């Protein structure tokens, strides 16, 4: 077992080293006699190759992320063209979705808060109903639901847009004109993602809490002043901080991952749907990872 592990690690770095090592051991002769060495070698090679590929792609993604962050804090990145794209991106990501968003927040708000209140009443938790609603709406539901909606709507659009630009050689044309792709194309989208998800999460939470009053009015016969006081006394600074932290993190990955996926599209039109598919899968994994990470941090 030890020999195999040593060989595996070795082959992950340099495949031909393993061949040399195998020649020096009796183990190799034993395997050769069985006629299985080629199969095992191929298996180990494929594991090593996929390990190298994974490490390389993670390194590439981290390098791209850090480049975007460096450009984000550099004032020279904010030229007039970039600002124009940023305004348009905010309009398309955050403003055009508002009617649908308001309707969904209202419907979900009244129904879900209703369910939470009904459950709390059933388990005699009326005393802590305020903190239950705040934790559920502000910390969890509003940012996560907003992130899902924006990733489905804008994440896919950005991934397709960048992939099409890549396939059509538009990105190369911009490079030819010495236009920095991060400043002109990626940064406005990432910043608009952060601004849109944060503002829409706050809006979603506010509407959800307001619409929740409708249920409390009919179910618990609670007046608005009491409902307001319950919520105000339950909310803490840490709740606002969690909402902002999660929204910023969600907004960042919702744009970054589709952009990166679009950039990695192979040079054919048939590669575009594959790129969008891969990008969306990675994005949803990242969203769940952030959600789990924030839950763990809150528990600490």
């Amino acid at each position: 077992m030890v020999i195999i592990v040593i060989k595996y690690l070795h082959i992950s770095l340099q495949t031909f080293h393993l061949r040399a090592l195998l020649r020096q051991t009796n183990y190799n002769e034993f395997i050769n006699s069985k006629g299985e060495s080629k199969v095992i070698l191929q298996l180990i090679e494929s594991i090593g190759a996929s390990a190298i590929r994974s490490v390389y792609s993670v390194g590439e993604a981290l390098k791209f992320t850090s480049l975007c962050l460096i450009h984000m804090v550099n004032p020279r990145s904010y030229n007039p063209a970039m600002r124009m794209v940023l305004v348009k991106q905010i309009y398309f990501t955050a403003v055009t979705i508002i009617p649908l968003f308001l309707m969904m927040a209202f419907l979900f708000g009244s129904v879900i808060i209703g369910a939470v209140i009904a459950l709390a009443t059933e388990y005699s938790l009326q005393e802590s109903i305020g903190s239950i609603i705040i934790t559920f709406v502000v910390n969890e539901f509003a940012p996560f639901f907003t992130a899902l909606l924006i990733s489905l709507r804008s994440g896919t659009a950005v991934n397709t847009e960048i992939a099409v630009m890549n396939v059509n050689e538009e990105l190369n044309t911009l490079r030819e004109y010495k236009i920095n792709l991060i400043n002109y194309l990626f940064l406005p989208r990432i910043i608009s993602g952060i601004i849109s998800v944060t503002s829409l999460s706050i809006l979603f939470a506010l509407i959800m809490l307001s619409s929740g009053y409708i249920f409390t009015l009919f179910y618990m016969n609670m007046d608005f002043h009491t409902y307001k006081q319950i919520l105000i006394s339950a909310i803490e600074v840490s709740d606002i901080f969690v909402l902002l932290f999660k929204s910023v993190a969600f907004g960042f990955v919702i744009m970054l991952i589709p952009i990166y996926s679009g950039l990695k599209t192979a040079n054919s039109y048939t590669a575009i749907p594959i790129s969008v598919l891969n990008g969306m899968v990675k994005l949803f994994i990242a969203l769940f990872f952030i959600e789990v990470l924030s839950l763990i941090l809150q528990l600490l």
Partner: protein
Amino acid sequence: MLENIALIKEVHEHLATPKAQDIAREMLQKISQEHIALYRVSACSATEIFYIQFIRALMMKEEHIMIVTPFSLIDNLRNINVIIENIKILAHKKHILIVDMLSNEIHYKGTACNTVK
């Protein structure tokens, strides 16, 4: 198209968008193409796209501009002189080099430009 041209000045010279677009509009007016200012690429003909590409190249600081095989860029182009006249109007301060194949030599007969084989 206006944004497409103005982009170069906005990025390289940090020129405000309205000013950069004014310069782009002025260039289009010089060759009587101002009607395409608000068109999208799909609405433009090959000749119009060529002019946009050329004006965009003019927006750069580089002194030399090279046009490679204009007959493959513009469909159904019969007379290069129309293009050359517009290039002269637009780029009187720059050095323009047109590179083409010998098979297209016939199209360049009668032009006032220097021809090198």
